């Protein structure tokens, strides 16, 4: 659960697993000349925790918080049901902002 599955340069989207560390995503996107702005200060934190807490941090003042950069999620409910919410494109994202 620690892999970056895809960085889609055309849609400016990345698909990641929840255990990916913020510093690893920053490194991978910056290598391609892209920016993932949320930086809550704990570079060793993971994306799943950032999303669950809607992490902000200092850069949140300028760029917005984690919620503003999430277009879709694959979610497992406590019953075990798997939901696919949103997607790569802006018009496919009911429930995410």
């Amino acid at each position, binding site marked *: *659960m*620690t892999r970056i599955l895809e960085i889609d340069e055309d849609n400016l989207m990345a698909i990641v*697993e*929840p*255990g990916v*560390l913020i510093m690893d995503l920053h490194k991978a996107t910056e290598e391609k000349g892209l920016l993932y702005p949320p930086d809550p200060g*704990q570079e*060793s*934190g*993971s*994306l*799943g*925790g950032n999303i*669950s*807490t809607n992490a902000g941090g200092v850069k949140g003042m300028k760029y917005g918080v984690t919620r503003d950069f999430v277009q879709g999620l*694959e979610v*497992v*409910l*406590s*019953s*075990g*049901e*798997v939901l696919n919410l949103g997607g790569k494109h802006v018009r496919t994202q009911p429930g995410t902002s």
Partner: protein
Amino acid sequence: MTKFSPVTSDILQQLEEIVGSKGLSTLSQDLEKYSKDESLEPPHAPEVIVHPKTTSEISAIMKLASTYNISVTPQGSRTGLSGGAHPIYGGIVLSLNS
């Protein structure tokens, strides 16, 4: 307060069938490691730690836990500062960091 059921050997066996023997741990040093994040809260030891690899494994774990009423605490890299990753009811720690 909600009462959760303890993790029995039967449930450990079922978890092992889902994630494999390498995907789960009940060693005391692991239970200690996964009992806290970076907050100042006192630690709460879980009963078992599972390391799922896929969404379907997580789904199966959640199904098992909800059937037997066992508490599940998802954890990432445990860098939170407010105790959100503490397994305060024991039970299963769902570690997404490996």
